[in-house]
């Protein structure tokens, strides 16, 4: 493999290309296969005033808690096994997200798909008649030009300035592979993004000729023309799922939720886990796991 064509960068190098005020898309779904190491790098930066587009999980929660989100485009924010995301709840209840844009899940897909196809909108029924129309007064409908004449919702295209997704495997040039049960909409996040800031983090960076060793060709849905930067991020989705490499760290997720309960415990959690770089985070998590295991052993 030629090094000159490698797109491998670090999380911090990737985040250094992002500017305040940009629109960023984050792949995954809820608390599943989220590019958390990139989110953590974003937390360490001075970047703010972001528009964030996400099938939201702890990515959205953490960015809200850090006060980096001005506009949020979402269908939900959830931790899956714990239904409600505490920081997102707190931010919405305090009114600190200046511009929440709440869509139906399918509308979000349609917006990203329209963006990736360079269409101005895509029509759908999802959203019509619902509160989504009431709280997004800028949404418009379009009349079918055919005999049916149906009035449909025109979901406006979403275009992104930066996109982050996490994959199981990638080669150095950006061909990437998901080995778990669902691609979610990661291809659309990359597709809807302007070239230049399309980043894929991966559990392992492997040789191109090894891409079919662990999964069939059906798993190669992200190709290098969709990707500008590749980040080697082992355990990078932690504490969300990254099947089959690892499942969700349910105990840690629970600790995250408990820490979010008040300002003091959140500060302690942030100081312990989020104050350093990615390797400090991973070491802190390992130490925390050892402590939990020791405490469990001691209580036997």
């Amino acid at each position, binding site marked *: 493999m030629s090094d000159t064509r490698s797109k491998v960068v670090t999380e911090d190098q990737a985040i250094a290309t992002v500017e305040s005020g940009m629109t960023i898309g984050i792949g995954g779904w809820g608390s599943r296969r989220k590019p958390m190491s990139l989110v953590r790098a974003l937390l360490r930066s001075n970047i703010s005033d972001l528009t964030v587009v996400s099938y939201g999980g702890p990515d959205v929660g953490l960015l809200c808690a850090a006060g980096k989100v001005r506009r949020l485009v979402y269908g939900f924010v959830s931790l899956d096994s714990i239904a409600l995301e505490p920081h997102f709840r707190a931010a919405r209840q305090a009114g600190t997200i200046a511009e929440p844009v709440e*869509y139906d*899940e399918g509308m979000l897909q349609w917006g990203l798909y329209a963006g990736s196809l360079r269409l101005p909108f895509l029509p759908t*029924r*999802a959203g019509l*008649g619902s*509160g989504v129309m009431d709280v997004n007064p800028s949404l418009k409908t379009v009349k079918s030009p055919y005999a049916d004449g149906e009035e449909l919702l025109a979901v406006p295209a979403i275009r992104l300035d930066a996109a982050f997704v996490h994959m199981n495997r990638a080669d150095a040039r950006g061909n990437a592979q998901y080995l778990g049960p*669902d*691609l979610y*909409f990661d291809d659309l996040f990359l597709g809807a993004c302007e070239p230049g800031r399309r980043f894929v983090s991966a559990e392992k960076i492997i040789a191109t000729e090894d891409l079919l060793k662990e999964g069939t060709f059906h798993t190669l849905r992200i190709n290098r023309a969709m990707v500008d930067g590749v980040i080697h991020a082992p355990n990078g989705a932690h504490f969300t799922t990254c099947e089959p490499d690892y499942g969700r760290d349910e105990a840690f997720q629970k600790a995250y939720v408990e820490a979010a309960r008040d300002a003091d415990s959140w500060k302690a959690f942030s100081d312990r886990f989020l104050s350093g770089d990615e390797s400090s985070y991973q070491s802190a998590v390992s130490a925390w796991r050892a402590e939990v295991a020791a405490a469990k052993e001691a209580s036997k």
Partner: protein
Amino acid sequence: MSDSPALTDVIAVACAEAWRGDGEIFASGMGVMQMLGARLARATFEPDLMVSDGEAFYVAGDLPIGGTNKTVEGWIPFRSVFDTLAGGRRHVMMGASQIDKYGNSNIANIGPWAKPKAQLLGVRGGPGNTVNNATSFFIPKHQSSVFVSVVDMVSGVGYDRAKRIGGFIAKRHDLRRVITNLAVLDFATPDNSMRLVSVHPGVNVSDVVANTGFELVIPADVPISRAPTAEEMDAIGRIDPKGLRHREIPS
């Protein structure tokens, strides 16, 4: 069969009944009781239903809730769920934090949307579900703070709103049933306002009325929700061997 079935099992059967007659479509359950209902219907009187593991696979056989030993019969990642619901080949049973007399439902937030008193999930797939495929609801605690005259955010479209849209959506809009810890309800009235279908054993019609924040249509005769058959009790035991369903109902 004992003569007084557990309330939880009556509810499981009532949930299953929501899918009766649906045939070869995706029976999708959002929550333990909803999943149990779908799998119970498939295991007994509605064998052609497709059910998922709640992650990304269609599973054959009676997969226990939370079980991992799956017989996969198909792949249903989220993108395929969206395609399937838009194609109308799905009947979903959701939860609701609020629901009104025409079936407008809310899982998004309590209080004003702009600055909610309680932020819940967001609308999720509710808007798309309710204008595209059949939708039912399981509500574990029937009370007037849930059965309200006006929901705070319409995440699921009710009959009045669907009729205002007209055309395709009004014609096919299909809210099927609402199952609670007290009763079974539906919308089979001339104006599609909510009707009491049956009360669970030991529940009086007046209990339902007292816990509903709008006027229900009450037929002259309100039957008692039926007890599970022996076959259904067997299936419930296979699908929920750990008894997770009992945690779904407030005591």
